[in-house]
């Protein structure tokens, strides 16, 4: 098997900041896993009530996010897409971006230009607002509650 030649390369300013934020998010995820393993506390089961929903009886932009993440961890991809569609897209973009940055930084594997991931961030934001609008329309116009 051909060994990867260690050739450290420096990320661009845009990707560097996003990479470090991604590492911080990964650290938070690892901390949550360790918390569950050590103490048995499942942060996804805390299920704090949505104050916006309780007050306005409408779904907020992030409604369904926790349920979608729980479904994804159980392997229920369709249910995850139904509850919060941008989550799967965000996780895929995050995984691909972090992997390519890691390989570029430590092994010099070619990656896209600096800042190419920004368009995917904009798409994620657009998906969040789009699914929120769909849920509001379904609730207000058709009386269909998404939760």
């Amino acid at each position, binding site marked *: 098997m051909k060994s990867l030649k260690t050739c450290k390369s420096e990320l661009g300013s845009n990707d560097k900041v996003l990479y470090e934020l991604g590492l911080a998010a990964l650290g938070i995820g690892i901390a949550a896993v360790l918390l569950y393993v050590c103490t048995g506390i499942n942060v996804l089961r805390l299920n*704090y009530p949505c*104050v916006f929903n309780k*007050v306005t009886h409408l779904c907020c932009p992030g409604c369904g996010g926790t349920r979608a993440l729980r479904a994804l961890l159980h392997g229920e991809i369709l249910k995850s897409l139904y509850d919060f569609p941008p989550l799967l897209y965000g996780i895929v973009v995050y995984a691909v971006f972090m992997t390519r940055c890691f390989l570029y930084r430590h092994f010099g594997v070619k990656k896209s230009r*600096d*800042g190419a991931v920004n368009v995917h961030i904009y798409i994620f*934001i657009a998906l969040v607002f789009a699914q929120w609008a769909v849920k509001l329309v379904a609730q207000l116009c058709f009386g269909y509650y998404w939760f």
Partner: protein
Amino acid sequence: MSEFDNNGFENNEAAETVDNPEIIETVENAETIEPEAISPSAADLEAEFEKVPEPEFTAQPDFGTESAYSSETQYSTDAQSQYAAQENEGGSKVFAIISLVCGIVSVVCCCTSWFAVIAAVAAIVLGILSINKEENAKGMAIAGIICGGVGLLIGIIVLIMAAAGSAVSPDVLQEYVEKLEDL
């Protein structure tokens, strides 16, 4: 008798020249003409000729043993300048990126209204700072400000309605307290 006996002149010509009294008198009365100065003074030279401009010093390429090194430094300088140009072109977008991330967090996590308000305020402040200080980061800063604005609006609506006491019932607060106690 040779034809060149009279001091190199031909016989007839030499005899007529020497014996003519008019010619002898002319020669004796001739003024001695001093020869003109051959070397002109420095002032004359300056007046007559323009100053030749001093040649510009041009660095000659070194064709010695350091040619390979100079080519390598030239290549590395070009690579560094290209990377610096790319870096300058991209610019530092730290504020813009953090503003965008805070804006996304404030929108997605608006369930917890206090956390959403804090993240939204941070997104708006950082977005404004980014627009003022950072170049080529306007798009991300504006997106962060918009997301922060939406999160702040949602948080403020919830807080106002909760403060008005018209919609929030004690059951919600009780539920929060129970969840905290479960921890």
